[in-house]
């Protein structure tokens, strides 16, 4: 018995959100889709490789600036600018990762943070290229005139069209990442998480393997960043700043690092809660902190871990 293709079903369902007719829902859903890709890319390192990166926002930021600069100043079409953003972020990940994988554990994490801080500082200061502190507003929307001519889509707004494109692209990226984690490469990555010393002794070139994972994670973070810059109608240095790295880390852990879609669920829950709670009270950070503490103690497998345990308990109860 094969399990239902949850990812595909979720992506199809997500495509109907604009049909609800609320600009706000579409806005939140776009945010969730992009951050879900960002968080799942981080989880390739955290959940599968056992590598804690405190600087994943660097690649998100690099992708956002690359895509923004290409589209705004060089009139590169979106269809080229977005893959380019991924490749540029991947190239930076290769360069920084080369040094990071030479360290382990907390030293690895600190070095990823150090590189991210350098990226942030450059984005913040290099006025002529990045717009410095002011950032880079008015990233043009991709030309989606063709979408309006598709049957059934003519009545939607440009934001809805961009959202649908985002869902399709994020789904495609998640599909690719899912293939990677289920590949021989992905399996050997889990041996590194479990026991890097032993992995070497079954012939895994641990550093090289980690570096490749780092580049893939950086590449998809870059694509997420490129999409986010357009969605946000501007790119700012705080895309690469450490709070962004910790935000994505929280999403990933909240959702559950042991599950492929865990981080995506984490992104959904965190962003929706954030929207809801900030409309009632200004104490969101306090609530977030409390939530995290409860989760870490009561549900170390994250939200998806807790749900899956509940699911299997119900399944057993029904069979009994």
């Amino acid at each position, binding site marked *: 018995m094969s399990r239902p293709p949850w990812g595909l079903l979720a992506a199809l369902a997500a495509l109907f959100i604009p049909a609800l007719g609320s600009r706000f829902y579409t806005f939140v859903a776009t945010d969730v889709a992009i951050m879900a890709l960002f968080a799942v890319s981080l989880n390739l390192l955290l959940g599968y490789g056992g590598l804690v990166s405190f600087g994943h926002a660097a690649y998100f930021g690099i992708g956002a600036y690359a895509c923004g600069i290409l589209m705004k100043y060089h009139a590169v079409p979106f269809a080229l600018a977005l893959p380019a953003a991924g490749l540029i972020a991947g190239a930076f990940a290769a360069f920084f990762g080369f040094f990071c994988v030479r360290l382990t554990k907390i030293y690895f994490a600190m070095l990823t943070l150090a590189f991210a801080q350098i990226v942030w500082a450059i984005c913040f200061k290099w006025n002529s290229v990045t717009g410095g502190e002011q950032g880079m507003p008015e990233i043009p929307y991709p030309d989606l005139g063709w979408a309006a001519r598709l049957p059934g889509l003519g009545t939607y707004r440009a934001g809805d069209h961009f959202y649908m494109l985002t869902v399709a692209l994020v789904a495609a990226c998640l599909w690719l990442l899912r*293939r*990677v984690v*289920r*590949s*021989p*490469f*992905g*399996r*050997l990555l*889990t*041996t590194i998480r*479990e*026991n890097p*010393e*032993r*992995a*070497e*002794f*079954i*012939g*895994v*070139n*641990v550093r090289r*393997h980690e570096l*490749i994972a780092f580049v893939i994670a950086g590449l998809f973070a870059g694509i997420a960043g490129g999409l986010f810059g357009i969605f946000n109608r501007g790119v700012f240095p705080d895309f690469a700043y450490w709070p962004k790295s910790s935000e994505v880390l929280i999403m990933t852990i909240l959702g559950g690092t042991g599950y492929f879609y865990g981080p995506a669920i984490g992104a959904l829950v965190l962003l929706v809660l954030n929207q809801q709670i900030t409309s009632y009270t200004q104490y969101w950070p306090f609530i977030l902190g409390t939530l995290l503490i409860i989760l870490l103690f009561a549900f170390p497998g994250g939200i998806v871990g807790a749900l899956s345990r509940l699911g299997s308990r119900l399944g057993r109860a029904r069979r009994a």
Partner: protein
Amino acid sequence: MLEVRGVRKAFDGFQAVAGVDLTVGKGSICAIIGPNGAGKTTVFNLITGHLRPDAGSVTLNGREITGLPPHEICRLKIARSFQRTNIFPRLTVFQNIQAAFLSHRGHGLNLFGNVERYYRAETETLLGSIRLSEKAHEISGFLSHGNQKQLELGLALASEPELLLLDEPTAGMSATETHETIALIERIARDHGLTLLFTEHDMEVVFSIAQTIVVLHQGRVIAGGTPAEVRANPEVQRVYLGERGR
């Protein structure tokens, strides 16, 4: 096949291995014995690239392999097991062995194949020969100590070595488990024409299967030869066998 010449290793000034020479002929079964802390594990670590010797050389079939990283040594058909079990605890038994096949046969960079389709038959055959077929889908970290030791051996065998180094393969096993495991190791070594270098505290095991024995004491080789020669060596009796007899 394997030549170790004058390897030395010190930890913070403590000379753990003080110039060891060792020759293991192709197809032979050789044991390293010695009291606790003699440096047996350290010698293994020096041969397999886990540690870099301060001096001396290790050659395999005439090729210098001193100081190569473990994953390259592994590719030269040297495999090892560990004294303290060293497995992938949150993977299943099946996944442990399958991963060793994947790596050994060069699929490490295959990013898009479906891992479930690789080496099923090979993995199952190997699990059968180490008698873990029934536990194939259990999480390996939850196995009994004896089963983990068997898996440890399986991980080494999955890389289809010509030279197999086993660091106390039966440590902590019950008498029956020890007996079975030794019979298994002997059979596999014979069937595949393996060269075997192992350490062991159980003297009965050592003298029953080793063709040559090297005795290590405080980081030095104090005796070597056939089991009969080693048994008769007065120095050995004094530092090692004697201790046990007392």
